[in-house]
Each structure stands twice: as structure tokens, then as C-alpha cells.
């Protein structure tokens, strides 16, 4: 029983990270109807930035906040410089640009930092909190950080005029322009936010998986599964999906299929959802009249 509880809680901790990356994917998807394949590499790259800052003598939390800010700027710049010119191109062209970004970010990381595995510090104590035997402090800390971030995002989109404008621009760009919203900038802002969310996820996962240029590969796959399970156009669904995938992956990996096949859980989920219920748990069903 203890082992099961342990696995479920550990699953929630990694699930929070999948939830964050899934949320970043959903944000871009809602605005552009495209899945950003470079989301994971962007997060990885930002985690390297954080590592550089920490090694340059910054404290963990100042480096954390600075990285989130830099990630935001990086996201905005990428949207303005790379994505904007292909905005109205066919879907396939944009997907190729996303894959190009993925490869470029990965290569730059290898070029600057070499491919060797680095340790990334955790800001949380090494002894378990409150003497509990189920979760490490980092796991609890990662969940708390994720939840705070989700809450802030929710408040931003729900209660601020800018958040409302971003939702409006994503939903109905033509009408948004007619009330004076600069839709192009809202997209850039969405990219910035997505990159910032990814950066937080990267910094939370790096102490667990270690820092290396391919660290987000598997996580991006789980995040895809999470986004699909929740419904790829539903932010709340993405968060739910993230936690669900995290728990499933851990529990199944520990008791049923073994650790080697863990990643297959994500693939099976992706295929399963697409076959059985393509709109996911909370997604909208799209009906097209012919």
C-alpha cells in the first residue's frame, strides 16, 4: 500500500510538470490551432540559461525569476521574428518551422554547453519535509510551484483586461480587431507566456532528470498525451491530463509494465484518445457542415 501511495504522489509531482508543458502547448494551440513541437526544446534552453545564471553567482530564486523573464522575452522574439512571417502559410510550412526551431535550439544548446549531463540544483531541502516518508521535498516543492503558477495564470486570464483581450484574440481574431485589440501582439504575448511556463517546468524537472539537451524529449511526449487526454483546446483539461498522465505513468511503470515501457504509456494514451475520443475529456467537439 505504501508503495502505491508513494507512486501516486510521485506521479502527481511529475504530473505537475507535464501539466505545465501541456498548458503551454494548449495556449499556442488555442491561438493558432497548431501544436508547437519546439515547446520542449525552448524549455530546455531556458533551463540552461538558469544554470548559467546560477553558475554566474546568482541565488536560486533570483536566477529563477530572471529566467522566467528571459524566457518570456525569448518567446515573444521568436514569435515576432520566426513565426510571424509564416503566419498565413499552409499548416505544413508552420510545422516545418516548429521542427526547425526544435533542431536549432537543441543544436545551440549542444554547441554552447556541450552534450554532457549537468546537475541542476533544487531550491528545496534534501531531507523530506515534515518527516513524511512518501515524497521528497523537491517533489512537494515542484507541485507547489506548479500550482502557484497555474493559479496566477488563471487569475491573469480571468480577471485582467489583458487576459480577456488575449482570450478574445484567440477566439475570434476578426472581432478582436474590431474592438481595437492588436491581435498580432496578443499572439506574441501568448508565445512569451508559453515559453515562461515551459521554463518553470524545465527548472522543476531538471533536478530529477538532469540537465542535458534532450531532457525534454520524453516530457514533451507526455505533455502531448496530457493535452490530448484533457482536450487540446481546454487549458483546465490540459492540467487535469497532466496530473493523470503523471500518475498513470508512475503507477503502471512501477507495478504493471516496468520502467522500460513507461514512455509507451504516453503513446498508447495518444493513440487511444485519438481513436476513441478525439476531443479529449474537456475539449470541444468540432462539427463541420459540408
Amino acid at each position, binding site marked *: 500500500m505504501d508503495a502505491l501511495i508513494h507512486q501516486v504522489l510521485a506521479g502527481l509531482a511529475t504530473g505537475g510538470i507535464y501539466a505545465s508543458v501541456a498548458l503551454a502547448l494548449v495556449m499556442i494551440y488555442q491561438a493558432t490551432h497548431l501544436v508547437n513541437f519546439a515547446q520542449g526544446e525552448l524549455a530546455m534552453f531556458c533551463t540552461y540559461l538558469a544554470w548559467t545564471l546560477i553558475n554566474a553567482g546568482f541565488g536560486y530564486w533570483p536566477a529563477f525569476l530572471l529566467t522566467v523573464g528571459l524566457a518570456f522575452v525569448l518567446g515573444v522574439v521568436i514569435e515576432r521574428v520566426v513565426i510571424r512571417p509564416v503566419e498565413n502559410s499552409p499548416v505544413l510550412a508552420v510545422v516545418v518551422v516548429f521542427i526547425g526551431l526544435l533542431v536549432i535550439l537543441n543544436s545551440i544548446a549542444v554547441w554552447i554547453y556541450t552534450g554532457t549531463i549537468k546537475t541542476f540544483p533544487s531550491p528545496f531541502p534534501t531531507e523530506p519535509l515534515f518527516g513524511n516518508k512518501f515524497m521528497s521535498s523537491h517533489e512537494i516543492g515542484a507541485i507547489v510551484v506548479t500550482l502557484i503558477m497555474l493559479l496566477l495564470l488563471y487569475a491573469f486570464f480571468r480577471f485582467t483586461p489583458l487576459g*480577456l483581450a488575449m*482570450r*478574445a484574440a484567440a*477566439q*475570434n481574431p476578426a472581432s478582436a*480587431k*474590431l474592438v*481595437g485589440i492588436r491581435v498580432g501582439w496578443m499572439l506574441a504575448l501568448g508565445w512569451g507566456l508559453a515559453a515562461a511556463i515551459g521554463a518553470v517546468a524545465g527548472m522543476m524537472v531538471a533536478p530529477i532528470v538532469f540537465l542535458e539537451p534532450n531532457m525534454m524529449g520524453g516530457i514533451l511526449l507526455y505533455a502531448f498525451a496530457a493535452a490530448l487526454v484533457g482536450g487540446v483546446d481546454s487549458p483546465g483539461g490540459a492540467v487535469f491530463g497532466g496530473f493523470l498522465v503523471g500518475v498513470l505513468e508512475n503507477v503502471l511503470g512501477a507495478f504493471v509494465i516496468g520502467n522500460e515501457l513507461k514512455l509507451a504509456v504516453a503513446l498508447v494514451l495518444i493513440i487511444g484518445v485519438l481513436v476513441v475520443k478525439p476531443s479529449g475529456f474537456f475539449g470541444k467537439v468540432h462539427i463541420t457542415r459540408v
Partner: protein
Amino acid sequence: MALLEVAGLRAAYGPTRVLHGISFELAEGSITTVLGANGAGKTTTLRALCGMVRTEGEIRFGGRRIDGRATEDIVRLGIAHVPDGRGTFVNLTTEENLRLGAYTRKDRPEVETDLERMFAYFPRLKERRAQQAGTLSGGEQQMLAVSRALMLKPTLLLLDEPSFGLAPLLVREIFEIMRTINQRERVSILLVEQNAAMALDLAEHAYLIETGRVVLSGPADAIKRDEAVRRSYLGY
């Protein structure tokens, strides 16, 4: 001086030319209507004014050239557009839709009073305040579209077929409110309509367009008495 001056306006969707150089004016504080059959270019005219289609020719608003500007910038000059199809943000609430109308305004306290003013004009919207706008009826969505446009505090209101798909009683109500808005708040209105009889009753000045050209213009009373207009558009 006219508030809006349009000269030689041309517009096309791809290779299909829709407007072949139309010219018209709108006096400050007036209601002017553009009449015409389906496909005559009425909607395109409004879209051209807002920079939603590529145009040639001159558009002046308050003396300033606005052709070729981005839609967002034109809106910020005080031109509100109630688009064809109403442009509702279907997943947002009625109140959020209205607040978006005031997105470019900086006078927060007055936005609150304007919100209440809209609810006074359209009490139905107040009842539906927290409801998803997509669940509103067609008539309610039209009220929402008109009041969302008014939340901008526009100088000029562009209305694209506000009567479309609505029950006659509701149409009369909306036209009555437009008259009130024009008189009480001095908002100039450019009204595009298929319901020629009602539009001519409301407007002071009218233009008739056919296949992208202005074929007739004058005071609404005179147009109403025009033999050809009466037969083709008023149906008696």
C-alpha cells in the same frame, strides 16, 4: 465639413472586383444609409472603411486619411463596426463581450457607468450578464453587438444589417434605440440595410448602390419617393 468622406473607393477579393470606385459623404451627427440588393457591395463598403479589405481610393475621417491603416488603429480613432454576422465572442460572457468593446478606453469609472447604460437600453442583456454569449438568441446577440460597439464611445457607428434574421418587433426596437443614440449621444451612424423601408425612415440621407457603384443618392425622403427605388426596393 463631412465627418466621413469617401472618394473613388475600390475593393476586390482576389481577382473579383466588388467596389468600382464609389464615393459618398456622411455629415457629422447624421444617419446615412447605404441601400442595395444582395451582393451589391454594401458589406464590403463597411469592411473597406475599417481596413478589413485591401482598398484603393480615398477615405477621410474627420479630415484625416484613414485608408490603408490597420483595423485596430481605425477603431481607436472612434469608428465602431457592428459586423455582418454580429461578431460575438461566443465563449465569453455577455459582460465580457461588453467590456471588450471598451478595451481601448482608459477612463475606467466611466466604462462602468456605460455598462449600466447599455443594460438600461437593453434590459435583456442584463438578465444574460453572466451567460455565455454564444447561448444568446439571435436578437440578443444583435443587441449585444450594437452595445459592444457603443462601449467604444464611438464618433461613428457602422451598422451592417442590424435587422438581419430578427423578428419585426425586435427590428423596430433596435431601430428606435439607434435613433435615440444618434439624437442623445450625437453618434453619427452609417447604416447598411436590406430593409429599405425602415432604413429610409430612420436616415436623413441615402445612397443606393448596385454592383459596386453608387447609382442614386439624395435625402432619404426624396429617395423614398423615387419611382425605381419604390418598385425595386420598397415593393409597392
